[in-house]
């Protein structure tokens, strides 16, 4: 009795939701149950994974970027999850070591999915660098940030004296995808900026928003911010239809 009839299974054509799972009594059939457990395990592992900064640094270095690292004040993953305030503030020594070189700052943070940062950040940067270079806004350095929340980029961007900060950070994993990357872009970064002062591109991954589309939106936003001197809710994506929109 576990499998639903063909007409019921046919509902799966219309949705990615877990429909037509069948029944074992009132419970899920074994295969559906274990499929859920696997998705949850991947998401949990992504939340608790430590960012492999050496591999990421090598990937970013190969793109011609100088690489620095910066820790937040969250001492470990447990504190990071329970104290978001600690993840928004930088380690003072790491911050002091950053050169005040201006320009566009690029921060890559683990966020809630180090897996996302490891898989999606370098390909996205590779796609975005030529587009940013074309408008004279290419970053020269990537700062790899660990135990990072989005607002950590405000401290890093301010220390670098940056005009704009781009924060690429792992999003909270769902069962559909444990490795979605988010991009948060803020003009004139400094501590105390609010989320309303940022623009966001979400769900960046091969099965979601692809790298070329995300890179194009990123470069467009950076160009608009530098031209208009602002970011956030006052900057709407008003490109014509057919151009990828902000997620």
């Amino acid at each position: 009795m576990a499998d639903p009839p063909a007409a019921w299974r046919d509902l799966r054509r219309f949705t990615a939701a877990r429909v037509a799972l069948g029944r074992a009594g009132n419970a899920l059939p074994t295969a559906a149950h274990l499929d859920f457990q696997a998705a949850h395990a991947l998401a949990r592992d992504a939340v608790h994974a430590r960012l492999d900064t050496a591999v990421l640094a090598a990937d970013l270095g190969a793109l011609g970027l100088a690489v620095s690292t910066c820790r937040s004040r969250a001492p470990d993953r447990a504190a990071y999850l329970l104290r978001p305030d600690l993840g928004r503030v930088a380690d003072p020594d790491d911050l002091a070591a950053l050169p005040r070189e201006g320009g566009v700052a690029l921060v890559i943070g683990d966020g809630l999915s180090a897996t996302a940062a490891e898989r999606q950040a370098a390909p996205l940067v590779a796609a975005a660098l030529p587009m940013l270079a074309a408008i004279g806004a290419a970053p020269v350095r990537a700062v790899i940030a660990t135990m990072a929340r989005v607002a950590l980029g405000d401290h890093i961007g301010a220390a670098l004296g940056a005009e704009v900060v781009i924060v690429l950070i792992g999003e909270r994993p769902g069962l559909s995808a444990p490795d979605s990357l988010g991009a948060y872009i803020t003009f004139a970064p400094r501590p105390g900026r609010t989320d309303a002062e940022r623009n966001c591109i979400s769900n960046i991954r091969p099965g979601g928003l692809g790298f070329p589309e995300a890179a194009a939106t990123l470069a467009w936003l950076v160009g608009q911010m530098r031209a208009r001197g602002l970011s956030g809710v006052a900057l709407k994506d008003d490109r014509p239809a057919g151009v990828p929109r902000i997620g």
Partner: protein
Amino acid sequence: MGFAHTIGGTRFVFDDLRTLMARATPFRSGDALAGVAAGSGAERVAAQCALADVPLRHFLSEAVIPYEADDVTRLIIDGHDARAFAPVSHLTVGGFRDWLLGKADTATLTALAPGLMPEMTAAVAKIMRLADLVAVAARCSVVTRFRNTLGLPGTLSVRLQPNDPTDDPRGVAAAVLDGLLLGAGDAVIGVNPATDSVSNTIRLLQLLDEVRARYDIPTQSCVLAHVTTTMAAIAAGAPVDLVFQSIGGTQGVNESFGVSLSLLAEARDAALALRRGTVGCNVMYFETGQGSALSADAHHGVDQQTIEARAYAVARAYAPLLVNSVVGFIGPEYLADGKQITRAGLEDHFCGKLLGLPMGVDVCYTNHAEADQDDMDALLTLLGVAGVTYVMGVPGADDVMLNYQSTSFHDALAVRAALGKRPAPEFVAWLDRVGIGTDGVAIPPALSPTLIGLG
């Protein structure tokens, strides 16, 4: 006025009721994040002992948030029913606990509800164990009606939650049919829109109303858009059964949600004027959750469970059909793990029921909390025993739009079977009439997918 209690040779002092309530609260991460939690286990129990000695009358004279500063406090104080309060007016918080667990029967509790302030229910919850919260809530009875009757003894209803990441009408319709075939949807068929725009909301409202009409289902539909979006949809002639809104327990958190008490009243009037209910006119649907006030920086140093109970005072002013706490959605910085989520879910259900609300719970968690399906099974079963009015039904427990895990259609069937509960009576009659069997292996002709555009 201060409070004090000595435990283990140490005298703990609490400056005011707000502080006493916070220190007495069983530990949860959000109160620690807010800096209001007790500093030690001994301080917590000392606060609980001192709180147990506070007369219930005291809550009428000391507000946790000043009357002048907060319209929710004014709603609570101005709306207090002294006559209904009389049977317990001589009791302390501790005495009230004993009274609730002892001689309070269903009729007594129903009559008492308008006499209780939310802070009284929060206070007594802080000195109760899970079994106490379950036992007292199970004696409460709250019945509401729109197109069917919810909350009758022996029933457990389900909100069918057919969310889709792009609001694709066929994706929503497929999830609705899946849920109906598994006996879900008597509380409401309610979709969270991915895009909160008037045009998109109207499109989804029309879809849900069409499905309901084609299958002739005795239930109500709802698109959980912002109240102002729903009001615009009503003005445009859309088929609105219920008005949804997220609410909280302070004026500040409600402002952060973009609502006021007068706006909610206006929305309710607009929905009532449509006269779409067939067996009753409870037209509001509210969601709440511990931690929302801290998240909005509008907590006034009050612990998150007390603020949550105050949100129920807001809800009850509008005679809602449905209220639910979305207990594990907000994340581990507010409720860290399965233990904290379980306790919070039972506290919220208990306080809501005591205050006379048709209380459901979204038994749920996110992937960065220390919780899993076992925790959900335990809380769902406890809530079933406590007589929860409704729970969520999400395909396979996996909400592909909101990216969190709630309870599934299967989970609801399992807890109904384990506890001998049934759906709302009108919905049971419909399930029988259309031929949805208990083994759930066939699609009856009356529910052909082609009838709702799934050819």
